[in-house]
Structure formats: C-alpha cells, structure tokens
C-alpha cells in the first residue's frame, strides 16, 4: 500500500482519520502506533516483528545511557550504535560485501529506522533530550507511518511535544491535506511521467544515444528524482500535520543552488543534518584544521553515498560530491565565489546533472561512457536508435515545462500574494483538480514505487 495508491488515499486514510478523531485523547497514540504497525505489516508482513524488537532494544539501551554516566554511558551508546549499524549492514550490505551468500531480502524502512535509532540514542547521551520512558510514545516516534518508510529523518525532540500534545486544528488539517495532494501530484503527474522515458534512455547504450538524448536523460532523471522524493516528503509532512504533528522541511528548491555546498542545505535536509550532527561533528568537524576538515567531509559523503545503496555507483556518487565540496571549501570558497551568480548556478546544475547520471547508472562503466559522451557532445556514437522526438511526446514536454517552473519558488511566491478567501478558493480549486487528476492517473496503475523506498 503506497501513499500514492487510491486505496491509501480513498480508504485507508479516511478510515484512520475517522478512528483518530473519535478516539479519546489518551488512546490516540495507541491508535497511531497500531495503525503504523498495521501499515508496515501490510507492506512487509512479519518483518514488523523485527521492527518491534528493534524499538524495544533501543528503548532499553536509551534508558541505560541516561541512567549511567561517563564511560559506562558511553559504553551503552557504543553498543547500541554498533547494534543499529550491524542490523542495517546485515540487511543492506551483506550481499554487496559477500556476493556468494544467498540473497538477503531488504525490508522497507531499514535505512531510515537505523538512522532514527542512532540519532535518538546519541541525543539521549548528549542530553539533547531525555529518554522516553513510555514505550508506547517511543514506538510512535519510531514507527509513525508518515515517516517510517522513507523519512524525513525526525529527531525525537522535534516531535516529542506533539507526541504528548497534538496540534490539531481545522487549519492544520486543511493545510496537511493540501500538502499531501501537492506531494501526490508531484509524484504522479511529474515524476512518473518522466519515469518511462528515463527507463528507456538508461536502457540504451550511451553509444546508441545522441548527445542531446544523453542530456535529456540526465535532465529528466534530475527532475524525476526531485519530484519523486520531495513529493514523498510533502506527503509525509502533510500527513503528519493532519494528525497534529509538525515535521521539519526536507527540501527547499535545491536546483536554484549556487554551489554544491548550498545544494546540500536544500536537498534531503534532514539527511544532511543527520550526517552533520552524528558523523561530521563527532569526527571533529572543522575544528581540527583544514586538512582534517576535508578528510571529514570526504568520509561523510562516502558514507552518504553508501547509505543510498550497496553499489559502487552510489559510493562514487558520494565521493564525487565529497570532492566538489572540498574544492568549494578551499580558501573559504575562493575557487567558486569569484564567479558571477548565474555562472555558479550553471556550474552547480551541470555538476548535479552529471552526478545524477552516476547515481542512476547500473554500473560505473555505463556511467563513464554516458558522462563522457554527454559532456563532450560526442558524435562517435555507433548508431543512434531514435531521433530525440521519440522521447519527447507532448505530455513529456508539458511535464518538463511544469517541472522546471515548479523547481523555482515563483509559483509559491505568486500564491502567497493571494490573501483571505481568494487564497482559500484558489487552494481549494487546486486541491480538487489535483485530487481528481490523481484518481485518474492512479486508476491506470502507471504509478511507480518511490525511488527512495529502496534505500
């Protein structure tokens, strides 16, 4: 049951709403935990027991970390962090590291769950938040269905207040629903429109595509992954709002960045913050001199790449970003800052397009040929199978135009000029239109799984 399936939006969600609002206050958390576990169970069956076990182990250790002091507390922290990493490693990396082993199934949510668990225990150790003594509350933090599968990565202190006191209001429900539909529309109307073309382009050899087609593939995938994942984040944030929770933002128009450093402040923000707080700073951050800062940055991005998947392409993608971030940092950014803003924006976009090719490619050999032919506008292709018009149907062009416009904050700025009832009516009309378009598109079952579900 995906967030973008009609069953979820037409049956599951209204039913859960209804139950949620008729349930007395003190049982609301219990209901949300039950519903979240049911949601996970429906997708992954008895792996839900793993999740339950995982929560309990983290619950026990967080209490121990809090109760003890000094080295003992640190010892408990190290044990639970290693435990979380081992579980993540077992499911996600065993087959990569030991290809001879039989295939290990990667259940949904493992990567995000592990990061939540590490963040929670480290924060308890750092006294950022007290350990949650109520197991039910902690279970809700870990398993709350809007963020369970693919984030955003929430810190406990960010929603601990909402767990105890929910901020439920008509305005929040309305804003939440609107956000959900916007996310669904991003996913189904834009990302999934690009998906078949991207699949077709990346199924062809780079030597059977013209340079223009290679660029088209890179551009479409950049937009696809942005609308796919930011759409998911919108749905998660919107759903949380409906139930009285406030989740942090995860995207902030990343493609308008004027540097790769800025990109990481706008793209998957909760993941960037996680790596900053739980890896970069513990490694010493920028407090131990320039060289150490660069090494730390590199380590963080290698880890970030590897977190995305057990494949060399992700690893190289992370390294690529790490190297550029280091270059951008040398001598306080003198290598980049001298450039006019539009050139910086252009350089950032070219870099991102190139790096997404590595991310999307099946292997490094493919990525290398693709990037080489793309950047050199190579004419040495053996045989171009299709003219570019084959990939550019009118609906693709339309989605491309919308996708490009919406990647800039113009529409949001325009919408913010509407006030009072005008704004309300415009939003409602948009909501109804997008909902109906969603039902039409979803009925055809052409929607795809969220890209970040496999990470």
């Amino acid at each position, binding site marked *: *049951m995906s967030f973008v*399936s*009609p*069953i979820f939006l*037409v*049956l599951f969600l*209204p039913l859960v709403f209804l139950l949620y609002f008729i349930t007395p206050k003190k049982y609301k958390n219990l209901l949300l935990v039950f519903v979240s576990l049911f949601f996970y169970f*429906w997708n992954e*069956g008895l792996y839900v027991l793993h999740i339950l076990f995982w929560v309990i182990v983290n619950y026990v250790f967080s209490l121990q970390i809090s109760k003890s002091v000094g080295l003992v507390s640190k010892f408990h922290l190290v044990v639970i962090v290693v435990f979380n990493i081992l579980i993540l490693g077992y499911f996600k990396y065993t087959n990569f590291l030991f290809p001879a082993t039989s295939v290990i199934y990667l259940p949904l949510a493992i990567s995000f769950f592990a990061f939540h668990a590490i963040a929670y225990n480290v924060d308890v150790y750092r006294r950022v938040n007290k350990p949650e003594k109520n197991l039910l509350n902690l279970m809700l933090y870990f398993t709350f269905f809007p963020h369970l599968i693919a984030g955003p990565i929430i810190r406990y202190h960010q929603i601990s207040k909402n767990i105890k006191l929910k901020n439920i*209001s*008509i*305005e*929040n*429900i*309305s*804003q939440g*629903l*609107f956000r959900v539909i916007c996310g669904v529309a991003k996913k189904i109307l834009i990302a999934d429109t690009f998906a*078949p073309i991207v*699949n*077709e382009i990346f*199924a*062809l*050899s780079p030597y*059977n595509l013209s340079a223009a087609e290679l660029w088209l593939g890179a551009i479409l995938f950049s937009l696809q992954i942005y609308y796919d994942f930011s759409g998911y984040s919108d749905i998660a944030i919107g759903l949380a709002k409906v139930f009285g929770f406030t989740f942090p933002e995860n995207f902030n128009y990343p493609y308008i960045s004027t540097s790769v450093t800025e990109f990481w402040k706008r793209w998957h923000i909760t993941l960037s913050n996680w790596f900053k707080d739980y890896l970069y700073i513990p490694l010493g951050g920028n407090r131990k001199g320039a060289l150490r800062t660069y090494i730390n940055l590199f380590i963080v991005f290698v880890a970030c790449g590897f977190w995305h998947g057990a494949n060399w392409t992700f690893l190289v993608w992370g390294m690529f970003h790490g190297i550029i971030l280091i270059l951008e940092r040398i001598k306080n950014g003198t290598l980049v800052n001298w450039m006019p803003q539009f050139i910086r924006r252009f350089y950032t976009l070219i870099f991102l397009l190139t790096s997404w090719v590595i991310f999307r490619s099946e292997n490094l050999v493919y990525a290398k040929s693709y990037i080489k032919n793309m950047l050199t506008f190579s004419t040495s292709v053996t*045989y171009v*199978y*299709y*003219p570019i018009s*084959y990939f550019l*149907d*009118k*609906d*693709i062009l*339309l989605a491309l135009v919308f996708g490009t416009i919406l990647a800039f904050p113009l529409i949001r700025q325009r919408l913010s000029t509407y006030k009072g009832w005008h704004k*309300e*009516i415009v*939003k*409602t009309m948009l*909501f*109804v239109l997008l*909902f*109906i378009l969603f*039902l*039409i*598109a*979803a*009925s*055809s*079952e*052409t929607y795809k799984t969220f890209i970040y579900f496999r990470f």
Partner: protein
Amino acid sequence: MQKGYLIIIFYILIIVTITTAMFLNISTAGEFVEHRGVVEIQRIPPIKKILTDSDTRALVNSYLRDHYGMRNIFLKTYPFIKLNILGSRRIYSGMRNSDGWSFETLPPSKISFSQSELVIIENNLVQENEYLKSKNIPYFFVIVPRKQSVYTNLYPFPDKTFNKKTDQVLNQLKNTDVEVIDLREVLRNNVDSFPLYFKTDSHWTNYGAFIAYEEIMRKYQEQNSKFKYLTKEDFEIFPVVHERWLGDSSLMSFNEPGHPEVEVKFKLKEGSSKIKPNNWKILTYGDSYVEVKRYVLKSELLHILPTMEYIIPLLFEETERSDYLKIKDTLENSISVIQIEPNIRLRNRLLNFLMISAVLEDPLGLNFFFEMNFDKSIVQPFNYPLDRTLVEKEKPNLVIREVNQSDLDSLLKTY
C-alpha cells in the same frame, strides 16, 4: 466560516462519493476490458489467512485496487486525457500511431546481449538440442516476432531496437546444430492477407498463429517427408468483422463501437483426412497467445480443456493435481473464468477455493492448430527448462521452444 473548511469539505465529498459508488457497485471494475482482467473474491478471506499469508494480502490489495468506486470512469478518462488532450503517443508502456495501432515500447531491459550472455544462451539451447538428438527427437527453436518487427511501417518510429537481441542470438547459433525458425520473414510476407496481430494488442491473431504453424510444420516436413500437416485448404477460413477493437489493450484507445476490427476464424472442413496422422506427439515450451475471454462459451472451453490439463497445474505451481481436478469441474460449469495479474497468478495457491482464478491465457496460439494436427500436444511455459522426465514418459516426435522476441532474456537462465 473558519479558514480551511473548504478543502476538508471537498475531501470528504470526494471520499464519500467514491466510497458510496464502491458499495453501490457504480462503475467499479465490472467490465473485462483490461489485459490482466480483474480480481474477484467470492468470499472475504478469513482474517487469519490475511494475517498469515502474503499472497492473500496481495489478493485483497488487488481486489480493492480493482473495485474502488467510479474506477472505470477514471480509467477511461486517463487515456482520453493522455491521447486526445495531451496528444501523447505513449501510454501504458505502449505507443500508438495515428491510425490507432498500438505497440509495446521497449521493455525495461538492455536492448542487446553481452558476449558472455550469448554464450549462456547458446549453451542452453545446444544442451537441449543434444539431449533430444540423442533420443532422435527433432528440436526447433522458434522466435516469435513482436508486432513492430512485422508491421515495421506502422510503428511511429523506424524500428531499430527490437531486432537487436534476436539478430545477436541468430548469429550466435549460426554455427550450431540448433534448428532455428525465425518467423519474421514469413509473417512480413503475409501482412497483406488478413491481420496477423490485433490492432490494439501485442498478441498475434489466429491467422498470425496459423502462418507460424504452417511454417513450423513445413520445416518439420522437410525432415519427415511422411508427415502431413493442415494447410489452408483443410479449413474454412472466414473473416468476422467486430464493431470495436478486439485487443486487450484496446482500452487505451477507448473500446467503443466505431473502430471495426477483423477477426479470422478457422473451421476444419468435414472429413479432413490429415488430422492427427500417425499418433504423433508434440511438446511445446510455448510463448504465443490467444486470449480466451471471460465470456468464452462453454463448448469452446471444453474444446481446449485437454490442453489446459497440462497448463493449469504448471501455472499454479504449488497446486496439487487434486486441486486442479476440483477447479476443472468449476471450469466445465463455466461459472467464471478470470485472469489475474501474473505475479499473483503464478504464486497463488487457490486460497482454498475462495477465489476462482483459472487462467486461460497462455500458449494456445500455436497449440490450437497443434491440437488438431497431433495426437497429443503438450504445452509447458516457455521459461521452463526442458523436462527430461516428461520427454522420457511422453516420447514426443517433436519438441519446440517458442520464445517471443521480448522474452529472449528467459534464455539466460542456466538450466
């Protein structure tokens, strides 16, 4: 009125409309218009079954997906918007030309094989061939072309990718003993007679299958001059004009009247002397399709049952033969013959007969004619390895591995 109410009111309105329509069965998935058909559940599976069996959960998921209110309206609006308003040619992993001919687009796999993959394919086929050769049984590897490889001029773009893998495989097998039958040429030579493929479907028609059958039998006769096969002269061949497109993806082009399509029917002439000569048997690993729809007549159903006896237990992989015999009765009563989506179909364990889910889809195309020509025609799915026990038991006179161009990857399986 407080701000925010409007969106909530409209959300509730949409949900109530759809839910009411669902319970009143208004425009839910009642029509059999899609390739995969719809899932039907006669009784709600017990909670215990839902909780313990992932197949049952998948079934319930599919059922809900197929039956939410007004789904058919949304389903038909999608191609309307996509094709007519947005002017797209690409829909449901297919591409449509201006005359309504639709074609599957490139499947999500590589368009060519690597050298090492070609060696695996060669080894697999050579291995089968050599085993059968040791038993004195001829073996044909038949490649069934995709529609765009035959109707090259109708595809909206020049065909440059579909034949790549096929040509590679043919080239790889050139220096082996494997007898390859490439049907592209013979089908291309017959495009001007009757339609060989459905207009809005990837499957060939009875006529297309017949042309292929004739070609395979001709090749076989070259090896066995005593063998006789049915030719056009043995049939009454008559076209039937339907008032709407027949293909199972016709939905993407609106399955409304006003889009006539010709279907060619075959009726064996009385007293044909060539039927089932010499009590010969044929074993096919088949990959061709003739759709048998829900509204299939009881008599027609009974006609193909002998073939299905071999198919059904294989498709329901984990089903016991006794289970098959039970559903055979159901089939003979012709209550309801439903196709369900392949991933469920192959894994489904019949769910204690809560669901009727017989499959009448797979390889009946060529087999329709083989059934008439051979004393016994045994069919197994194309992606199964050669069953040597079956060969020993049945001692077929001819074994065919029939693979569609789009399924050539199945040959990569090491047997």
